[in-house]
Structure formats: structure tokens, C-alpha cells
């Protein structure tokens, strides 16, 4: 009898090209390589210098997302560094035979949105990209992780990566009937998980999210959770594929068809953690106890339920955490003990690879419908891809946003990391559906509160951090 294995171990095992001897890492095959303009130029230049081709352009796909503007997209990019990176990507893709979805193409969008949308992300695959939020694709039962520029070059040249083994951690999210309370989303679940295990809690681990709450989530919601695995320090996050997964993939451009679909389904059914397999660590989350969650500090682990107050650093026992909290509260311009619901924002951002999918836009629109933004609040709604944009426009969501006073933009990473013109001014405060509240992430001196799309929209209406139940 073969040893009982976890999902992550099964996916690893089926990709070993060559088992490492002694201290040598295993050589793993990569099924899908996603490329964008910021982390790829030196990788392509390295190939050029060494006279090497891209081994499998047919397993490689490129798009422009990190630094592209989201308005006036028909004009040349104003920022010279961004323009150079985009032009370089176009030249490299043409030279090395890699398919590219450039700005204004109907398939352009954030890499982690377009992979699943095209049906390229499938269960049991290995997926890499020069971007840490590649963990998103783990929602399909794929093993997906971010890599550095040298590794990008390595994958381009060999379609493999030498990798050291990882540990496994089960994150069990259960509730009495498998549902979450009204107004609680998968964003709140993952923020609560990170607050629980800390930003380093997942280091060296691949996380597997399990339990009846996870099983009842849509694919969009599952992607939000896996996306933020990296914020807990994890190598990757995964969810076992099931009927929800199959239904999402079925019929997409690159999904298997006919007999191939049946063969794929039979294979995917084996991608579950075996009975009796052991994880190196386990964490249990009570789904019934979860409420809308927001961050108050400058790392994604510094979060609390919206109904709580800004913490008092003096009450924190661990010295490192206390000092970090003091510094964060100072940077964020908050006061210990003030109710989080009283925190006033200038800007609301809905978008990113965390919450820029159609379901996220629908959630935000459902709150904004018939309402208007609070005075002095600006709101940017940035679809994660052109397809999401077109679908939202077909459903009339863009009209809901603009009627409420929000700006409706074109697709890209946008204010999530402020590499394009969408940035916070020094001292400005945002409620953002993105993934990182680091100092200066959304613009020099900007202050970020990470929230769900529902909380983002309710906050835009009230002007202070709020959930839909706070609205009249």
C-alpha cells in the first residue's frame, strides 16, 4: 500500500523530473509560466546573452498589468520607466515567440485573473510567475508560487525549477452549517487566518484550506483566500478541486474538451488529501465566529474585527510585536483605543488580484446601488481584467459605480501597488480590497486598511470604516 499523502505532496510527486541526491533539490516540471513586464526583462536578456531559446513558449503566456495606466489607455504611457518595461516585454515576446495580451487587448488583465479566466489554470498543475501572488491559482488544486527573476529565466530556458521540499499545514475552516454570517466574505476569512498565524506563520509551508466553509465557497472566493497565502509567509496555498472547480473550468477557452475532459475529470478526482495523511501543522478556524475584518496596522497580520478598537500597544506582551504596533499606529495616524468604525478614509479602492473579479464587483455594486459616496471620498473601481470589465458593463455595474460617484477604470494592478499613476498622496488613507498594507505600498506616505469589497463599498458611503449593516 502506498503511503497516505496530502494534496500538495501528490502534486509535487507527479512533477518530479529528477529526484535530488543528498542535499540536492528535486527538479520539478512547470506546467504554466505567467510573465509580466516588471520581473521578466532581465530574464529574457539573460537568455539572449547565453544564446538560449524559450524551451516551451506554448506553456508560457505574457500580459501587461503591473504598471499600466487604467485611464487614457489609448495614449502612450507617460512614465518613461513603465513605458520602457512594457515596450521591452513586447519586443521580448516577439523575439522569443511568447504569446502576449497587451494593453487594450480583450484578454489583457492581471496575470492571476487571466490564467483562471482562460481556463489555463487547472487542478494538479504547477504554475509559476515572477509575482508573489501566484498563490492565487492554488484555489484550483494547483501548486502555484511566486519566483524571482533568475528563476523566471531558469523556467523560460528549461521549463523546470530545482526546488527544496516544503512542509504542509492544514487550515480547517468550519461552521455549524458550512456558511458564513451575512456580510462575511472569504476576504474576512483570510484576514482572520493571517491575524491568527501571523505574517511569518506559514513560512516553509504549503497551506491547504479545508472544511465545510471552504467547500461552500465559489471559485472567486477561493482564489481570494489562496491569493493571500503569501501574506502569511507561505510558499503556496491550495484547495482540493471539486464540482465547483470543474464547473468553473468547463467550457473555458483552454479547458479540455470531449474525451480529454473525461480523462481530466478522472484524474482530478484523485487530487485530494488521503485519509490518514498527516500535516506538519494544523490550524482550526471557527467560521461561526467570523465577522467583517479590517487591518489597522502596516502588515496584513495586524487586523481585527471591524467592531473592535485600535489596539493598545501597552497591552501587547511580546516586545517585538509591541514595538511593531506602536510604529504601525503612529504611521497610520491612529490612536490606541479608538473604534475602528470611527476611522475616516479619503480613498476607496476596489480591484487587484485579490478582489478584482466579477463577483467582487457585484458585491461592491450591490451595496452602492441607489447610494452615493460620502463627501470628500474618492473611489476607484478597477476590474482585474478586460473580460471582467466587459462583463461588468454588460451587467450595468459600471453605471451603478459612476452613479454613486466612483471612477470606473480599465484593467490592471493599479492602486494595489502604485506602480502606475493610481496612488495615494502622503497622509491619505484608503480602504482597499488589495493584499498589502505596507508603508508606502499605495503611494509614499499613504495609509492602507485592507477590507472586503462589501466593507469597501459601505465605507465609501459612510466615509468611515463600515460594513453594509451599518448603512440605513
Amino acid at each position, binding site marked *: 500500500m502506498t503511503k497516505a499523502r496530502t494534496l500538495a505532496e501528490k502534486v509535487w510527486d507527479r512533477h518530479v*523530473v*529528477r529526484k535530488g541526491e543528498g542535499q540536492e533539490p528535486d*527538479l520539478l*516540471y512547470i*506546467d*504554466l509560466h505567467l510573465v509580466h513586464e516588471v520581473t521578466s*526583462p*532581465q530574464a529574457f*536578456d*539573460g537568455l*539572449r*546573452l*547565453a544564446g*538560449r531559446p524559450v*524551451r516551451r*513558449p*506554448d*506553456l*508560457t*503566456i505574457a500580459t501587461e498589468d503591473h504598471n499600466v495606466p487604467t485611464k487614457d489607455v489609448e495614449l502612450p504611457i507617460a512614465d518613461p*520607466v513603465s513605458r*520602457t*518595461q512594457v515596450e*521591452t516585454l513586447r519586443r521580448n515576446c516577439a523575439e522569443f515567440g511568447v*504569446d502576449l495580451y497587451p494593453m487594450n487587448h480583450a484578454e489583457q488583465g492581471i496575470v492571476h485573473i487571466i490564467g483562471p479566466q482562460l*481556463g*489555463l489554470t*487547472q487542478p494538479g*498543475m504547477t504554475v509559476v510567475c515572477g509575482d508573489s501572488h501566484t498563490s492565487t491559482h492554488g484555489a484550483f488544486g494547483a501548486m502555484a508560487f511566486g519566483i524571482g*527573476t*533568475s528563476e523566471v*529565466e*531558469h523556467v523560460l*530556458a*528549461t*521549463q*523546470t525549477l*530545482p526546488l527544496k521540499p516544503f512542509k504542509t499545514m492544514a487550515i480547517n475552516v468550519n461552521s455549524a452549517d458550512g456558511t458564513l454570517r451575512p456580510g462575511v466574505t472569504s476576504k474576512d476569512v483570510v484576514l482572520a487566518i493571517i491575524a491568527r498565524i501571523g505574517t511569518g506563520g506559514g513560512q516553509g509551508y504549503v497551506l491547504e484550506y479545508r472544511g465545510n466553509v471552504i467547500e461552500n465557497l465559489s471559485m472567486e472566493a477561493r482564489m481570494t483566500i489562496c491569493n493571500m497565502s503569501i501574506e502569511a509567509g507561505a510558499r503556496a496555498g491550495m484547495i482540493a478541486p471539486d464540482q465547483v472547480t470543474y464547473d468553473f473550468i468547463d467550457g473555458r*477557452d*483552454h*479547458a*479540455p474538451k470531449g474525451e*480529454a*475532459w473525461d*480523462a*481530466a475529470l478522472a*484524474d482530478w478526482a484523485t487530487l485530494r488529501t488521503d485519509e490518514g495523511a498527516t500535516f506538519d501543522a494544523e490550524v482550526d478556524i471557527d467560521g461561526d465566529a467570523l465577522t467583517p475584518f479590517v487591518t489597522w496596522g502596516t502588515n496584513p497580520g495586524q487586523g481585527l474585527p471591524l467592531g473592535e478598537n485600535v489596539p493598545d500597544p501597552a497591552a501587547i506582551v511580546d516586545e517585538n510585536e509591541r514595538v511593531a504596533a506602536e510604529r504601525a499606529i503612529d504611521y497610520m495616524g491612529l490612536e490606541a483605543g479608538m473604534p475602528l468604525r470611527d476611522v475616516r478614509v479619503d480613498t476607496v479602492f476596489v480591484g487587484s488580484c485579490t478582489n478584482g473579479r466579477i463577483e467582487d464587483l457585484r458585491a461592491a455594486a450591490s451595496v452602492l446601488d441607489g447610494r452615493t459616496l460620502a463627501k470628500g471620498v474618492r473611489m476607484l473601481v478597477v476590474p482585474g481584467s478586460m473580460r471582467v470589465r466587459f462583463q461588468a458593463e454588460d451587467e450595468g455595474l459600471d453605471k451603478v459605480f459612476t452613479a454613486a460617484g466612483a471612477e470606473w477604470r480599465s484593467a490592471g494592478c493599479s492602486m494595489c501597488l502604485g506602480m502606475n499613476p493610481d496612488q495615494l498622496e502622503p497622509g491619505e488613507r484608503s480602504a482597499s480590497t488589495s493584499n498589502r498594507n505596507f508603508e508606502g505600498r499605495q503611494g509614499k506616505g499613504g495609509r492602507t486598511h485592507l477590507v472586503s469589497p462589501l466593507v469597501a463599498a459601505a465605507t465609501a458611503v459612510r466615509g468611515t470604516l463600515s460594513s453594509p449593516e451599518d448603512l440605513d
Partner: protein
Amino acid sequence: MDAFSTHTGIGVPLRRSNVDTDQIIPAVYLKRVTRTGFDDGLFAAWRQHPDFILNTEPFSKGSVLVAGPDFGTGSSREHAVWALMDYGFRVVISARFGDIFRGNSAKGGLVAAQCEQHDVELLWKLLENEPGTEVTVDLQERTVQAKDLTFAFQIDDYTRWRLLEGLDDIGLTLRHEGDITTFEASRPAWLPVTTPAG
């Protein structure tokens, strides 16, 4: 990358310890889209001073850098190795190296030769008394020689082998290209390709 066996070139005495990678190349030079051309960023802050050693002859044409202990500490940027090599350095001699820098050197083809600080001091004196003295670094024998001075340096067997063979990470993997091809033949036919669907 090019195989390395022995190298002879002008030695440059850099009498500084704890040369971190931000000193080797400041962050502002990291925005490039190329893999080469980082030589202008090498020691950019120090090179503002006319009397910095690389601004003086014949040291500006040096290819063997002789530095104080703890060379290459700090940020993991691979650009530090690229900048040194783009400038023309093939070897750095020091009593201690930052771990990540040492690893990045092996990947980039730069020899990080670790020796006793005592030997560094002797070499510094020789290079300062007779500017332009050539230093020969023999990777096969793991020795440094300049005029009458000869001493041994340390480099681990694996890194030495890689450098002698001229194998970067990709080169190492491609030694197993047969395994990759065999694996590819076994992949299920239903796995997706990125070529736009008809």
C-alpha cells in the same frame, strides 16, 4: 557562462571591510531592463570621489579586487555580482563573504576567493607599493600568486567544479535535459497549452 581556470589581471586593493551590496550597487541602478550595463553603478557613491581607487590609474583597469572582511553583506540583489563583472572584475579576494553574495557569485561566474586576512594584508601592501602588479588566481590549484607572494584560498568543491565547467544554474539543469524530454513525453495530453484557442 564562461568556464574559469586561471585568471591574471591587475590587483585592486580596496581597504574597506563590510562592503555591503548597497555600496556595491545602490538601489537606484536596479531599474534597468537589461542584464548587463551595470558597471556605471559599481561603487557609485564612492566613485564620486576623485581619489577613490577605481578613479586612479592603473587600478581603473583592474580585474582582481582585494577587499577587507565581510564583503557583499546585506541585500540579496544579484546586481552586485553583475556590476562587478560588467566592470571587468573576475575575482574578489576577501577573508569573509556574505552568504547570499557568495551564492550569487557562483551563479554569475565570479570567483569569491576566501583567504586569511593576513594574506590580504600582504597583498594590499604589494599592490600599493607597486601599482599595476598583476595577480594570478588559479582555481584548479586554489592559489593566488603575485610577484613572490603565493598563498592558498578556499572555495567549496561544488562551486569550484561549477566554475571550472562554466555551468550556471540553467547549465546545471540542462545537463539533465534528457530527463526533461522524457518527462515531457509522459505528460497527459489534456494539459493546456497557451497558444490562443482557435
